[in-house]
């Protein structure tokens, strides 16, 4: 029997006490592992969010958010001047109108700030949004100002997006954009052609080549698209000039998506746009701002995880430290015997360190199993406690022109929704390493105490 095996046997000398120590230590190690996983997962997510949002700047009229607020629309001249700024690689211009179904009363519920046309009506009807559960299947109901309202003759307004370039789809809040039938319209033309979202097309039995009326004009369906989200799939997309002409906003736009050559130049270009167009005229939002908003919650989780990780490691070290101090104090006489019969400090310390290591490793295995089982629930609890619309949660309604709010939701919301901890070998190795460090730290003071025990201790009476 060697020093190591004696240490391992000593670890299980007192069954009840060993079980208690292992359970407490396992909980502490599980906590450390969960926090380490959370830290790693959140870190990866922050990097992913940062890389996914990109190097764009959103410019919209000051005071205008979605279909709310008011402001003077921007002009294509503003876009031209913006495009001329240093480091700007492209500018996507959009104008968004809201069309009401002919004969419906939706305009009494929804204002139309960006729509200057008194003829903003369409032959289309919007797909209804039904009450999610418990609703009356015989009548459609709508959520307006937070309350369910019976449908009746009411129908949702339809968004008509005029766009001059498809290079940046963020105005659609679309991570993907697929033409499922027909072709893409030419966004630079001024023809009376449109692309229709698949939900809207389905609701109105539209197919490629069919027509509908908007702003009193007959529009031909050139294509049907799927933008991957309900809001965009209820839209029609027109060439920018067409939307401008039909809505009576010729030469005007309500949003610019400005792409910059490098993330490093975002702030300087944003400042240049504000200078050029006037801070009282435009609201400028960089993707850097969106990144900051998106990762605020993640940073909070990271901070909590870091402190909890340190706390649980300290707790683990303290548990093993106090356990070993208690064991050494109890076994002073035995240590004295070992010294009296020729045991060196190194050998006796090694025996106690192997005892601490054994306790810690057994606890680590249990702690890791617990940690793996609880990492995702704990991570989700952390996410839920740290997400709100203000710091990165989803906003479900009121997006629209500009797309800044929509894109914001896309980055931050999905950052929090799609977060999952994955246990890899590296985490297991880190866990074992942490356990060994905890055991060594926990054995340091007891080892010092062992070295101070005099062999003459053995001669003292019980």
């Amino acid at each position: 029997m060697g020093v190591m095996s004696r240490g391992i046997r000593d670890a299980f000398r007192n069954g009840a006490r060993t079980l208690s120590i292992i359970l407490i230590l396992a909980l502490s190690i599980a906590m450390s592992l969960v926090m380490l996983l959370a830290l790693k997962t959140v870190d990866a997510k922050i990097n992913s969010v940062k890389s996914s949002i990109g190097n764009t700047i959103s410019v919209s009229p000051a005071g205008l958010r979605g279909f709310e607020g008011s402001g003077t629309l921007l002009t294509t001249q503003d876009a031209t001047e913006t495009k001329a700024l240093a480091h700007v690689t492209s500018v996507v211009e959009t104008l968004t109108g809201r069309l009401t179904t002919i004969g419906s009363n939706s305009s009494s519920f929804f204002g139309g700030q960006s729509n200057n046309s008194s003829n903003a009506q369409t032959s289309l009807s919007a797909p209804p949004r039904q009450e999610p559960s418990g609703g009356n299947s015989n009548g459609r109901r709508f959520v307006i100002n937070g309350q369910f309202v019976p449908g009746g003759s009411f129908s949702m307004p339809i968004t008509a997006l005029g766009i001059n370039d498809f290079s940046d789809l963020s105005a659609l809040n679309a991570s993907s954009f697929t033409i499922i039938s027909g072709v893409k319209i030419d966004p630079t033309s001024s023809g009376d052609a449109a692309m229709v979202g698949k939900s809207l097309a389905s609701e109105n039995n539209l197919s490629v080549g069919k027509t509908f009326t908007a702003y009193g004009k007959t529009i031909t369906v050139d294509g049907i698209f799927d933008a991957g989200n309900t809001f965009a799939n209820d839209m029609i997309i027109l060439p920018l000039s067409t939307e401008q002409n039909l809505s009576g906003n010729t030469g005007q736009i309500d949003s610019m998506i400005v792409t910059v050559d490098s993330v490093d130049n975002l702030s300087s270009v944003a400042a240049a746009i504000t200078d050029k167009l006037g801070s009282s005229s435009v609201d400028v939002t960089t993707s850097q701002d969106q990144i900051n908003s998106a990762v605020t919650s993640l940073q909070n989780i990271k901070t909590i995880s870091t402190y909890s990780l340190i706390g649980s490691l300290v707790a683990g070290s303290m548990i093993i430290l106090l356990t070993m101090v208690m064991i050494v104090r109890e076994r002073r006489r035995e240590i004295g015997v070992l010294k009296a019969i020729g045991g060196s400090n190194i050998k006796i310390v090694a025996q106690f360190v192997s005892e601490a290591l054994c306790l810690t490793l057994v606890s680590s295995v249990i702690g890791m199993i617990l940690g793996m089982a609880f990492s995702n629930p704990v991570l989700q609890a952390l996410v839920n406690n740290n997400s709100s619309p203000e710091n990165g949660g989803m906003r479900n309604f009121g997006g629209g022109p500009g797309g800044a709010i929509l894109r914001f939701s896309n980055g931050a919301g999905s950052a929090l929704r799609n977060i999952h901890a994955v246990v890899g070998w590296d985490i297991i190795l880190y866990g074992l390493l942490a356990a060994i460090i905890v055991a060594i730290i926990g054995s340091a003071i007891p080892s010092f105490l062992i070295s101070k025990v005099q062999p003459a201790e053995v001669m003292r009476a019980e």
Partner: protein
Amino acid sequence: MLKVENLVKIFSSEDNKVTAVDGVSLEVPNGVFSTIVGKSGSGKSTLLSLLGALDKPSSGKIEVDGEEVTKMRDSKLIKYRRDKIGFIFQNYNLIPNLTALENVMIPMEFAGISKTKRIKRAEELLDEVGLNSSKQNRRPSRLSGGEQQRVAIARALANKPKLILADEPTGNLDSATGKIIIDLLHDLARRENTTILAVTHDIGIAKQAKITFTLRDGKLVNQPV
């Protein structure tokens, strides 16, 4: 040969000084069974601690086989305790979660003897002290006091020491078992040419010793009887 010259041990506290061993000088030839007698507090156990290098004297000299123990550094003292000294204690001081065999093997493990040799020698020693093989794999709690003391004697003999120091080896045993243990020690001293110095209260045991030292208030009050 154990040779002690003018050995002094003083325990000091803030306001008190106690001279536990006061100028003790003695000699014990090799292979002799000798005893130290004296009342409680006379310094017998302290003297034994000093001889076994469990504690350091305030002054004086201890020589075992010509080697001066009092001048040894700590690392050499460990070696001295391991190779030259065997301890037997009144309350046996066996490691409770190890078997009798494993307890006897520990000093040999510290001396770096291979496992096979350790097992063989431990079994021989336990046989020699009269602990049969059926009891060799028992833990101390499952052995009687006399059997535990036999294990302690076997452990003390494990590294073939020159000097065995026994502190009240029969103090916790009934008189019949105590006599068996003393006979065993006596026999070992003769057979292995090992010097044995035992501290005892028992005058009967002291009478069996070739040399008996009497301690009073830390001083030797008589020369060898």
